[in-house]
């Protein structure tokens, strides 16, 4: 394990960039934000490469960083939204919120599915982080439960449970939404 040949950073980036970008896109559904996250992921990879101990596959390690950076990004956006809400209550000179709410812009979604996909992603966003992660990696990234367990450093059984809870939670929220919208 310790005598693994060093992989050049550029090769690592080229081999994994699409995977990282698409995962980030599935978390934030915005091209600009996904690009920022992708850059942050590879900056972290570059910073941590020497310390990487090869206890997991490189792709697993990079996926893990991608998930963490995506969740960090979402948390930061939510903090900015809360702050923006407070400043809007207490008034700002310009009368504008201080945060910038990214709009739904997932280029991978087919045109005819855009409206329902937007609803699904917005509902996924309301899930607890671990359920959200497991659902995205399983349904959108199409990883196996074993692979997801390695990324999330837990067991396949735990991932199965997370996915089931995520689906049940989503279904419940969609039902409420359906009833409220009077569709």
């Amino acid at each position: 394990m310790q005598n693994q040949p060093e992989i050049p950073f550029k090769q690592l980036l080229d081999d994994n960039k699409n995977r990282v970008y698409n995962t980030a896109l599935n978390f934030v559904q915005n091209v600009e934000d996904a690009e920022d996250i992708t850059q942050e992921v590879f900056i972290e990879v570059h910073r941590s490469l020497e310390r990487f101990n090869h206890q997991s596959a490189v792709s697993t390690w990079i996926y893990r960083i991608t998930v963490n950076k995506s969740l960090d990004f979402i948390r930061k956006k939510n903090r900015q939204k809360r702050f923006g809400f407070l400043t809007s209550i207490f008034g700002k000179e310009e009368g504008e919120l201080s945060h910038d709410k990214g709009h739904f812009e997932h280029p991978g979604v087919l045109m005819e599915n855009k409206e329902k996909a937007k609803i699904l992603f917005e509902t996924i966003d309301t899930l607890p982080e671990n359920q959200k992660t497991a659902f995205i990696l399983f349904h959108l990234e199409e990883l196996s439960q074993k692979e997801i367990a390695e990324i999330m450093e837990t067991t396949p059984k735990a991932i199965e449970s997370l996915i089931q809870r995520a689906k049940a939670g989503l279904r419940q929220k969609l039902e409420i939404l359906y009833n409220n919208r009077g569709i």
Partner: protein
Amino acid sequence: MKKEKWINEVFESTKNLERQEAPAFLFEKVIGKIELSKKESREVNSSTLKWAAGFAAVVVLTINIFSVKKVVSEGKHAEVQGMNSEMQSGLNNSTIYNY
């Protein structure tokens, strides 16, 4: 049934999600940011050193000022005390002389 159908359609809406190509020049952008971060880190270190040196100088100067003040004040006190005891002894003597 309509509700179930709608919910299933929402779940299925991300089926056949098209994989996207990562943005162009990603490597160059990442390396650029890494270099910028290194440069900023060097500048912060240099600036921090200057502030630390300035702060240390202020602390040393302040201690010196207080020390000098204390020495001067102790010196004056000792002088006054000396004068006091001289006066006392003078008074005592004069008292003797008065006798």
